[in-house]
């Protein structure tokens, strides 16, 4: 369970996240949406203890993320907006191994996790491929594999569909659905709900750092366009 309690994050005097309280149960498929600059990315970075709150706190399974970042980072896997920002190695296998190696796991366990994570995103057998040789969609899936290798309870994806064509988007989404079915909580940060409405459990929309919508997707889609979020045309009419 992830609990955000009155979280405030300021850049200078301006609050990017302004008193957000949110509970995210395990296994939930949640979309965090909002227009550019609404505070989505800043908010999710707190889940991974990559930011320090000015006020409030984030609890990951009851543990304060700021005090125990390792718990936060093993419980919440994160992929960045541009997957290329996430890669720290030259080859697929070495990159996926990076997290488990940092956890100090045994070699056999690391190998198992590489195989398992690459299998989960449809990149099995590609361990020795250069990351540069992968397509955009494959790089996005590799970023997911890198996060999955930490065996997180929740996976946070920051704008995972940006720059992907329709087949690549569908491939990534299919993997996310499978992971969700297998019990992993998914949090997708986006400003475009068109691909996601049928798959998610809950939609949370931010505007100026505050939660303005928190509802099931069917209810949420009516309110989202006024906050700069794209929804499927058939649902917005």
């Amino acid at each position, binding site marked *: 369970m992830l609990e955000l309690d009155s979280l405030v994050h300021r850049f200078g005097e301006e609050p990017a996240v302004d008193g957000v309280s949110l509970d995210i149960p395990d296994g939930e498929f949640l979309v965090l949406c909002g227009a550019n600059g609404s505070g989505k990315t800043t908010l999710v970075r707190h889940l991974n203890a*990559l930011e320090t709150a000015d006020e409030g706190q984030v609890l990951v399974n009851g543990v304060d993320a700021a005090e125990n970042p390792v718990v936060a980072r093993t419980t919440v896997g994160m992929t*960045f907006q541009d997957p290329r*920002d996430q890669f720290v190695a030259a080859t697929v296998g070495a990159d996926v191994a990076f997290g488990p190696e*940092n956890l100090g796991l045994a070699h056999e366990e690391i190998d198992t996790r590489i195989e398992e994570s690459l299998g989960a995103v449809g990149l099995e057998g590609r361990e020795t491929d*250069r990351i540069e040789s992968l397509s955009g969609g494959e790089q996005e899936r590799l970023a997911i594999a890198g996060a999955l290798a930490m065996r997180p309870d929740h996976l946070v994806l920051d704008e995972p569909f940006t720059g992907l064509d329709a087949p690549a988007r569908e491939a990534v989404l299919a993997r996310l659905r499978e992971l969700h079915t297998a019990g992993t909580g998914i949090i997708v940060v986006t400003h475009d709900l068109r691909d996601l409405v049928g798959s998610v459990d809950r939609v949370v929309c931010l505007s100026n750092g505050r939660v303005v919508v928190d509802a099931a997707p069917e209810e949420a889609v009516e309110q989202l366009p006024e906050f700069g979020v794209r929804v499927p045309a058939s649902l917005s009419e």
Partner: protein
Amino acid sequence: MVGSVPGETLAHRLDPRTKLAAQVAFAAAAFANTTPGGLALLTPVALLFLGAARLSPLAVVWAYRFVLPFLAAAVLIEGVTLGPPWLTPAEAVPSLLASYRILLVVVVGAVYVRTTPARESRAAIQRLIPGKPGRMLGAGVGLVFRFLPLLRRELAAVRDAVKARLGDENPVQERMRVVAASGLRRAFARTDRLALAMQARCFSWNATLPKLRFGRLDWVGLAVTVALVVYALA
């Protein structure tokens, strides 16, 4: 060329510790033997190293061409005078030999960089240097090897962006200013992003290191290393 590429060449199959030792031994031999004869002897050895990684000498020199102006400058500074006779080739010879020696060391270093993943370099250093210094140095070297290809890509992106808007029509000085300023800015931003990515995946000084195996081929590498050390000390 400034990053590792997976492969099955002889150099790829060597233990990184062997490659590190051979590299250091080669550098020692090159610095100890600066005569034309000594460097002439080391040239085929450097070519052997390149052959073991199936690398073309020209491709390596091209990839590291940014070193060449500095090497050439050293020779010019020694060989050119500010008055008659303007050129003193005899005085430039030691610099020429020193520059050539550095070029050979760079070429051998390229073989290591090309054939050794960052995590294996880290493992090799941590196993060669025990304790905290080894961990710090290993992680540091691993970071450098991770960061260099990223930095190169950032600079290439800046150059492309400049060209795309006809920046290459500007005088060299202006182009250099733009590329240097934007490149530096992007390098810092890239450093932040890399640090964040490593943080997000629990970067640790005590990470599990990849297994290293000292095989039969490494004995050959070790023999070459010993020969180079003997040559350096002779």
